[in-house]
């Protein structure tokens, strides 16, 4: 199954690269205008367009780009006058760091909350977790972020407002980004655990004298996690798109802010590079989810 996934990776990424290439070239606006400003005379613009290869037919530009990508050459950023790969390399660690921390926040919140809600179904705990999850899913990042900053940075002065410095600068962005995911996972985990807890194999385990803790954390949770892992894999995409907003709010120097700048400046190679990396990340995460699935469910391994 993993091997099959790896094989489908190639056409997926190729499709994304093609689509993005076409889309960015269809959008009105021109990187040459951005670079030279409007004062430039048409001859200079034409010269620059030729130098950047923008005067060649679209198909030729596309094939040239693909050939570069295969060789690992993502081209040069038009705006920054530097290799795209260099710009991406500087930003990827920041986005990975933020996504990993947000995922950790989501798990730290979702697992205890989901388990507590499932075990005490239809009690105040369950309803409380429902309300918390609804809030978590509904609050937009661009509102939650400044709210957290106002409380914890401006008033309490525990964390810096924005930027990427020590571990303390990671806390608020990670909570902002991880909250929605935490809420969704809590609901998923609760419902799947409720279902599993009623299963006969657990009654059998209890009859064999297995302690309630082991029943819950080993026998039940492992099965209950299956749908959660699927959702987690799918939701990593929304984590990446949420990162664009969160990075903007916290001036986090990641791929999201780079992508926004690239789009505004019509920096074709840089937009393509960013989307390529993000889609590779998305595909990679889904591979990981498949792998985790095999760990949780031995039936898949056959």
């Amino acid at each position, binding site marked *: 199954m993993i091997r099959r996934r790896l094989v489908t990776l190639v056409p997926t990424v190729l499709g994304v690269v093609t689509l993005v290439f076409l889309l960015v070239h269809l959008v009105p606006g021109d990187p040459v205008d951005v670079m030279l400003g409007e004062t430039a005379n048409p001859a200079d613009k034409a010269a620059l367009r030729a130098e950047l290869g923008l005067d060649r037919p679209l198909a030729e530009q596309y094939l040239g780009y693909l050939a570069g990508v295969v060789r690992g050459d993502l081209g040069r950023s038009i705006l920054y006058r530097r290799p795209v790969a260099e710009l991406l390399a500087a930003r990827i660690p920041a986005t990975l760091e933020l996504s990993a921390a947000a995922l950790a926040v989501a798990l730290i919140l979702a697992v205890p909350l989901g388990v507590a809600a499932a075990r005490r179904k239809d009690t105040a705990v369950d309803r409380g977790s429902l309300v918390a999850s609804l809030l978590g899913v509904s609050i937009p990042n661009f509102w939650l972020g400044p709210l957290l900053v106002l409380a914890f940075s401006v008033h309490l002065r525990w964390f*810096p*407002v924005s930027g990427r410095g020590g571990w303390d600068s990671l806390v608020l962005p990670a909570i902002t980004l991880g909250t929605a995911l935490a809420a969704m996972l809590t609901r998923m985990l609760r419902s799947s655990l409720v279902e599993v807890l009623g299963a006969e194999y657990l009654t059998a385990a209890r009859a064999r004298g297995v302690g309630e803790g082991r029943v819950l954390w080993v026998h039940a949770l492992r099965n209950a996690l299956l749908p959660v892992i699927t959702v987690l894999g799918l939701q990593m995409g929304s984590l990446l798109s949420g990162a664009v907003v969160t990075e903007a709010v916290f001036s986090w120097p990641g791929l999201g802010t780079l992508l926004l700048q690239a789009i505004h400046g019509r920096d074709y190679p840089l937009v393509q590079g960013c989307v390529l990396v993000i889609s590779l990340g998305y595909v990679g995460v889904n591979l990981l989810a498949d792998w985790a699935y095999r760990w949780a469910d031995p039936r898949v391994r056959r």
Partner: protein
Amino acid sequence: MGARVARIVSLAVALLAAGATGCRTGPEPAAFRVGIESTPTTLDPRYAAGAHAVRILPLLFHGLLKADPSGRLVPDLAVTWQQPDERTHVLRLRQGVRFHDGSELTARDVVATYRYVADPAHGCPASGALEPLRSVEAPDPYTVVFRLKRVYVSFPSLLTLGILPQGLANRKDLGDRVVGTGPYRLAAFRPGEEIVLEAFPEHFEGPPSLERIRFRIIPNATTRLLEIRSGGLDLLQNAVPPYSVRFLRRDPNLQVIVSPGTSYQYIGFNCEDPILKDVRVRRAIAYAVDRQALIRFALDGLARPATTLFPPEHWAHNPDVPTYPYDPDRARRLLDEAGYPDPDGPGPAVRFRLSYKTSTDKTANEVARVIAEQLGRVGIGVEVRSFEWGTFFSDVKRGDFQLMSLRWIGLRDPDVFHYLFHSASVPPRGANRGRYRNPQVDAWIDESRRTPDPERRRELYFRIQQAVARDCVYVSLWWLDNVVVLRRGYTGFEPLPGGEYTSLARVRPEGAP
């Protein structure tokens, strides 16, 4: 069960820690921190075009000339500047000026920088403007001679370009190796994150007071406000929304300095539009806009109502142009005369409909909606359409608009009239985006470019401003105020009309010599 929970939690914490190990340690606390809205893409003076780069460059580079606070050009790296004839400029250089790499500035560096920029093959933004340059020579190490192909009165404004050492000026891509003669040198440039400058002790005007300056790129306006409130920034210049100024003034740790600015906001018409080509309709729209109300409510009073491009303190400002004070009755009469009667008076039916294009900027959108409402009161239906900046700007240049609003920032040289209103400057050749064509205005503009006598030029500029106001090519809205928010305890920051950070080199902690 407890052990299990502990294991899961510790796993999660380990994951968090693993993510966090990639962090760099914090910046040096001594740095003076300035928040800016977007990242300069390059700090190479030959290629820098965006407003943010242009504002930071004076800290890193000197040019032959510089603009003083009133906008006049005065010698900088030059000690004297002479014009033996109308097509020749001779500049004598200061001696003993050092580059950040330790080498001494000579005329050869100047020649190399200008030759590189003037070559269209290099794609530098200023190459078009340097087209009239015939040659640049260095007859001796401290003399530079520019010869022009024809009389070109605004050539001196091109002599402010930052000078690079000869060895770098010929190189295509400098990356972070920008070496100038300015009071600061570049210590780090992380695009999208920060620019760190450190004092250059051998600066020819003496070392600056602040040891380090850190420009932090913070695109989100709310985040910038929270940063300066929490002590994470020391200076914000024209980077806070108008509504916030009131509460920033109440912060005991901050000083808010408001001064008259030169950024000129206007409504542009498409003069080729079937409805808007009638000057009566354009005038009616100008009369229907209540600028005072807009300034008071949308900008919290932080602007001066404008009548023409250049503000009163500029030498080319014409104080006597036709103006359009708020007068909705007059607007209605003009529209009736133009053949657009209101079908039902104050009722919902409109005389005609127009679209008003704008970017997604929050203040620009608020202003657009208020203007739409004001025009609605005289019976003009306006649909506000906001677009992502690149798309909006591309539409405007193609003439695909009826009404739009934009701002001119840092206008200094009135030769810009050619670029804005000459019939030869319809895009892509210039910024006559309204497709305004007036042969008389063209003739005055052409004459002004050939006229070295400043008094005669001023007279021509006066006439151009009068004609443009009479023909109502733009609705002049306002000149925005400069708003500087500075942490208490620092002194010496002087806002410049173009928003340059030049005076940061003179900022010092209060009480310091």
